[in-house]
C-alpha cells in the first residue's frame, strides 16, 4: 500500500510539469503585457521595468528561471502588487479560502450521503420524490445566484448573519459563504448516492444478505453502503474542482479576502506570475485531493487494491 501511495505521488510530478509548462507558454504568448495599462510609460522606463522583471530575456530563459524558482518554492514577484512576492500574496489569502472550501466539502459529504441513502432506502416514497425535486433545484442553482439571494435574505431582510467583508475570528461572516458553496454539492452528492444506493440495493449480494435474515440496518450499513459510496468517491476530484471554482464566486459575492480574487484579477491585469502562482497552488491542491480520493476508492473496493 505504501509503495502504491509513493508511486501515485511520483505520478503527480509529470502532471504538474505539464500544467506549469502549458500555462506558462499560453499566458506568455497571449497578446498584452502587464504594463500596458499603466499610463504613458516612456520607452526608457518601460525598458527598465522589462529588465527588472526579466521580460527582456528570451522566453525559454524566463521559463527556465521560473521553473528553478518553483523548485525553490519562490513564485516570483507580482507585476501589479509591486512590493509583494506572489508567495506572500497567496499565503495571505489561502488559509481563509481553504477553510471555506474544506468546510463546504465536509458539510456536503456529511449531509449529501445520508440524504441520498435515505431517499434510496425509501425509493418512490413521497420523501424520495420531494428530496429529488429539491436536489434538482440545488444542482442547477449557480453559486452566483444563490450567494446574492442568501445574502439578501439572511443578511439584509432578516439579518441573522453578517455579510460583506470579514473580521478575522468572527465565524458568523463565514456561515453564508460556506452554505452557498455547499448547497449545490449537497444536492449533487445526494443524487449521486441515491442513484448508486438504489442500484446496490437491487444487487444479488444484497438479496443474499436478505436471504440470510440479516436486519435491514445491517444490510444497509455493512453490505450496501461501501459499494454505494464508490461513485461519490470518484466524484470527489471534480467536487474539489467545483469548490475551487465556486470559491472564486463566493469570495467575490461576500467580499472575503481569500486568494480566489488574485486569480481573476491576475488574469484581467495580465499579472503573469500571480496567475501562474495561483494555478500552481490550486493545481497541487486539486491533484492532492484527487490522490486522496483514489486512495479512498482503493480502501472501499478491495478489487482495485492490488492492481
Amino acid at each position, binding site marked *: 500500500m505504501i509503495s502504491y501511495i509513493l508511486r501515485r505521488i511520483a505520478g503527480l510530478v509529470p*502532471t504538474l510539469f*505539464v*500544467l506549469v509548462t502549458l*500555462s506558462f507558454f*499560453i*499566458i506568455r*504568448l*497571449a*497578446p*498584452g503585457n502587464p504594463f500596458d495599462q499603466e499610463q504613458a510609460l516612456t520607452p526608457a522606463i518601460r525598458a527598465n521595468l522589462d529588465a527588472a522583471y526579466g521580460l527582456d530575456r528570451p522566453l525559454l530563459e524566463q521559463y527556465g528561471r521560473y521553473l528553478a524558482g518553483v523548485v525553490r518554492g519562490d513564485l516570483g514577484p507580482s507585476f501589479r502588487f509591486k512590493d509583494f512576492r506572489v508567495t506572500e500574496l497567496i499565503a495571505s489569502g489561502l488559509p481563509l479560502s481553504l477553510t471555506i472550501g474544506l468546510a463546504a466539502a465536509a458539510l456536503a459529504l456529511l449531509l449529501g450521503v445520508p440524504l441520498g441513502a435515505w431517499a434510496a432506502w425509501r425509493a418512490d416514497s413521497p420523501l424520495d420524490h420531494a428530496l429529488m425535486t429539491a436536489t*434538482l*433545484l440545488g*444542482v*442547477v*442553482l*449557480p453559486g*452566483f*445566484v444563490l*450567494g*446574492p*439571494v442568501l*445574502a*439578501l435574505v439572511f443578511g*439584509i431582510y432578516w439579518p441573522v448573519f453578517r455579510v460583506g467583508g470579514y473580521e478575522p475570528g468572527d465565524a458568523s461572516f463565514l456561515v453564508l459563504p460556506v452554505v452557498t458553496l455547499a448547497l449545490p454539492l449537497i444536492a*449533487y452528492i445526494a*443524487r*449521486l448516492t*441515491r*442513484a448508486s444506493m438504489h*442500484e446496490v440495493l437491487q444487487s444479488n449480494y444484497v438479496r443474499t444478505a436478505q436471504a440470510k435474515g440479516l436486519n435491514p440496518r445491517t444490510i444497509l450499513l455493512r453490505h450496501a453502503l461501501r459499494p454505494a459510496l464508490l461513485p461519490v468517491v470518484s466524484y470527489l*476530484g*471534480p467536487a*474539489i*474542482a*467545483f469548490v*475551487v*471554482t465556486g470559491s*472564486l*464566486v463566493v469570495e*467575490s*459575492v461576500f467580499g472575503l479576502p481569500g486568494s480566489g480574487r488574485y*486569480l*481573476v484579477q491576475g*488574469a*484581467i491585469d*495580465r499579472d503573469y506570475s500571480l*496567475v501562474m502562482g495561483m*494555478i500552481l497552488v*490550486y*493545481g497541487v491542491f*486539486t*491533484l492532492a485531493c*484527487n490522490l486522496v480520493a483514489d486512495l479512498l476508492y482503493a480502501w472501499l473496493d478491495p478489487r482495485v487494491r492490488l492492481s
Partner: protein
Amino acid sequence: MMRRVRGASVVLGLLTVTALAAPWLTPWNHEQLDWANIAVPPQFEGAHWLGTDRLGRDLFARCMQALRVSLLIGVLAALVSVCIGVAWGATAGYLGGRVDAFMMRFVDIIYALPYVFIVIILATLFERGSIAALLLAIGAVGWLTMARIVRGQTLSLRRREFIDAAIASGVSTPAILWRHIVPNVAGAVIAYATLTIPQLILFESFLSFLGLGVQEPSASLGSLINIGAQEMETAPWMLLVPATLLTVLLISFNLLGDGLRSRLAGDGAAVP
C-alpha cells in the same frame, strides 16, 4: 418522466421564441437609456415590463438579449464539444491499447484541473468579451466529459459480438465505426449534449459574472446577475429577474437531458 420532458421542451420553446421576438415585444432595446425611469421596479408605465437599471435601461430588453447570447453560446459550444468529444472518444475506444491509454491520459490530466483555469488562461488569450473566443474556450473544455462517455460506450460496444460479426463479414474499420458504433452511441451523445448545454450556459454566465465574459453594453445573464447583486438592497428585481430566468433555463435543459438520457442512452450511462 415524459410529462417532465414535454414540460421542459415547452418552456424552452417559449423562452427561445420570446428571446427572438423580443424586439417586437417591447419598444426598448438593450442599449437605450430612459432618463425618466431610472431604476424603477416592473411597471406598465413606460413599458418597462421588468423594470429598469441604474442607467434607465429596460431590463426586459436586456434580459432577452442576454438570453439570446446564452442560448447561442450554450448550443454552439455544445456542438464544438460534441464534435471533438465524439471523434476523440470513439477513436480511443475503438483502437484501444496504447493509443487509448495515451489519449485518455491526456483527458485525465486536463480533467484533474479545475477547468476554470483553462478557460481563464484561454480568455486572457483573446480580446476580452469576444464571443468567438468564449465559444472556443468553453467548447474546448466541455468535450472532456463527452470524450469519456463516448469512449466508455465504444469500449462496451467493441466487446459486443455484433462488432466481431461485422469484422468477420468483411466490413471495413471506417464502415464499422460509421454503421455500428456511431448509431449506437448517438442516443447517449444526444442526451449528454442536452445536459452539456446548461453547464456551458452556466459557465458562460460564471465568466461574465467574474467580468471575463460578455462586455458592456452587451449583457449576458451572468453579468446581469453580477450587476443585480450589487444593487440588491435597493433594487432586488435587478437580481431576481435574471436569476430566475437563468434558473428556469437550466432546470429545463436538465430535465430534458435527463429524460432523453433515460430514453436513449440505456444502461452503462447511469450518471446522475
